[in-house]
């Protein structure tokens, strides 16, 4: 096996041995499909793999050919598509509101505290928008799932945030927030009697408070403060688990798989994400580029004389060849830059000619990923040389 096969081998090994894989990337690059395809490959390797997506829409269900998935892991029937699978494939989707509710039920100190949280107007309206709670809850759930005996491997499809890094930062941000003076500020019962009871030392501080009050009204501030007070009993648990997740993600049994498309904007995002992973010393597994347009010039010519062709057909054929080649070449340029900048040879997965919406398609996609080629070395050396 040539050294250029390494990235696929590393991915294969991760599917065989690691316990947690986090699949990250921008929206619209086939991340969910990739996560599910990898879970199926892992099942084929004899492991019990769960794919979990944090997505209010039915994306994962769609790619599995199901009408819906719930937040309970469900075992998929692999008999038809992979009778040879020694392992199991499970799937679930995470609903933020349900997860948050479940956390409250589990960790609130008593029934009264629990009811206070549920009844809070602020919780009802905003719990889903709370400081990246989608991202935070994903990590929270991840911890729970990795402790579940039913699974050897958990593959997490991260939320398609605009800034794909939000996911990584969520536990940190939460810990910071819980330790911050912001929270303590809201935890002091300033607003208890419906008016500001605190004496704010500076004139600016008083003015700022007045501004906040006039903008939002005392009722809202009270609700907000009450909400934080009601949650107080849960803070130690939050902090504790957020730290655990952080530690777990850094372990060698975890790994990150970065997925991107060939468009310039998504490549930029992938590069950025990669740098942040390195900075945070997170274990990196593979960089996958989906939906590439293969260069038609790379098709080997079977040879022989050109058959007689209708002139119009010949012209059309030449035109589609040119169109496809234009895209392929533009994409290749971006990829060379990506590899030179990150030092990671991306796995190049061609755009499928069919859409995936069942397990059969997922199996093919997984095979395509594990069998993907990387960029030719020649080309990289040239570019790296030109850049240096």
């Amino acid at each position, binding site marked *: 096996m040539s050294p250029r096969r390494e990235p696929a081998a590393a991915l294969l090994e991760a599917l065989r041995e690691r316990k947690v894989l986090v699949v990250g990337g921008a929206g619209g690059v086939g991340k969910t499909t990739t996560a599910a395809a990898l879970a199926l490959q892992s099942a084929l390797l004899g492991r019990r793999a769960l794919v979990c997506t944090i997505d209010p829409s039915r994306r994962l269900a769609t790619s599995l050919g199901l009408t819906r998935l719930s937040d309970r892991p469900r075992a998929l029937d692999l008999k038809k598509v992979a009778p040879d699978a020694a392992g199991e494939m499970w799937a679930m989707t995470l609903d933020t509101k349900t997860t948050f509710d479940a956390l409250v039920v589990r960790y609130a100190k008593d029934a009264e505290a629990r009811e206070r949280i549920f009844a809070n107007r602020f919780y009802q309206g905003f719990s889903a928008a709370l400081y990246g709670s989608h991202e935070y809850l994903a990590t929270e759930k991840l911890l729970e799932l990795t402790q579940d005996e039913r699974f050897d491997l958990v593959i997490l499809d991260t939320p398609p945030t605009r800034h794909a890094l939000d996911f990584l930062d969520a536990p940190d941000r939460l810990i910071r927030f819980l330790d911050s003076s912001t929270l303590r500020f809201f935890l002091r019962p300033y607003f208890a009697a419906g008016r500001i009871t605190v004496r704010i030392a500076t004139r600016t501080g008083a003015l*700022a408070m007045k501004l906040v009050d006039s903008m939002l009204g005392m009722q809202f501030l009270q609700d907000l403060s009450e909400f934080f007070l009601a949650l107080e009993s849960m803070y130690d648990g939050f902090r504790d688990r957020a730290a655990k997740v952080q530690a777990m993600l850094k372990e060698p049994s975890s790994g990150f798989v970065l997925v991107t498309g060939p468009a310039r904007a998504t490549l930029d995002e992938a590069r950025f994400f990669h740098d942040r992973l390195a900075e945070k010393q997170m274990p990196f597994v593979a960089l996958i580029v989906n939906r590439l347009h293969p260069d038609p010039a790379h098709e080997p010519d079977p040879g022989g004389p050109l058959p007689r062709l209708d002139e119009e057909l010949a012209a059309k054929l030449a035109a589609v060849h040119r169109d496809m080649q234009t895209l392929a070449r533009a994409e290749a340029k971006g990829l060379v830059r990506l590899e030179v900048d990150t030092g990671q040879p991306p796995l190049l997965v061609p755009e499928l000619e069919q859409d995936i919406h069942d397990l059969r398609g997922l199996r093919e996609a997984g095979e395509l990923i594990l069998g993907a080629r990387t960029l030719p070395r020649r080309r990289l050396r040239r570019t790296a040389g030109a850049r240096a």
Partner: protein
Amino acid sequence: MLDRLLSRRLLFLSGKGGVGKSVVGAALALCAQRRGRRTCLVEIEAPLPAARLLGGQPGSSPIEPFEVRPGLFTINLEPTAVMEEYVRRTLHVELFVRKILQSPIYQRFYAAAPGLPELMLLGKIMDLTTERHAFDLVIVDAPSTGHGLSFLKVPAAASTAIPIGPVGNAARRIVAQLQDAARTGLAVVAIPEEMAVVEGLEFLEQARDEVGISAEAVILNQCHEPVFDTREEAQVLDLLAAERGGRLARGVTLRGALVAARRQMRRRKLTRFYETRLRKATSLPLVRLPRLFVEQFGEAELRRLAQRLEAA
């Protein structure tokens, strides 16, 4: 169709990430400008703002619209700057403003109040539709956060959570404006792929049931156009099966061209499949925009898309 779409005062574009919303937004803005409508294209923290496609330098202000060509403005809003502008307008005195923006109480509050940035952004967008700015049309490339139409749902949540005070009132005004079908509309952008179509249809459902905004059209972007007729398609498949070779032209092998043709044909079939599916699922007007094969998308390509919108 286009007349109807551009006749509103405020048009939101929504769709899954990666469907080319910002390009569609720029093409629509170009159409509106050509019709003599004073137009503002609003983006939110766009990494590659559409202004560059419209042939202009993007304006540097995150809160003031910038005229990229006569009668066509763009703005790339930054939530923090919008929030600061709000504080400025509420307080008037610059000395206080700076102190407040730096005061820990303000900072803490800003960090802790969820939904506030979205609300401020929508407030700013509503302000752009007022007489003061004299825009006939404001087009908003709504952020695709992957959380459905969450951006447009914030005002309703805020009006419940904030029962009194100017922000609560503003939230209620925004809800009313979003629901005013004579003034505000939504177009959903998709591409002919399973996930983008499923999500697009979900957006339509949420628009109707949860936001109450009037959906006006579905724009199916990156459609593969018909190239080969049925007889030619059969010929292509025969030649592939017979493994015929040879050269069509310099650097163009028959085999490469046939493989490219088969890909084109399959993608074309998918385009037709998803178009049919969308037409079955919704009675809204559907506009197809072609997949363009270029190395880099620029002004010329944008004009081509605008022409196609005109023809729809």
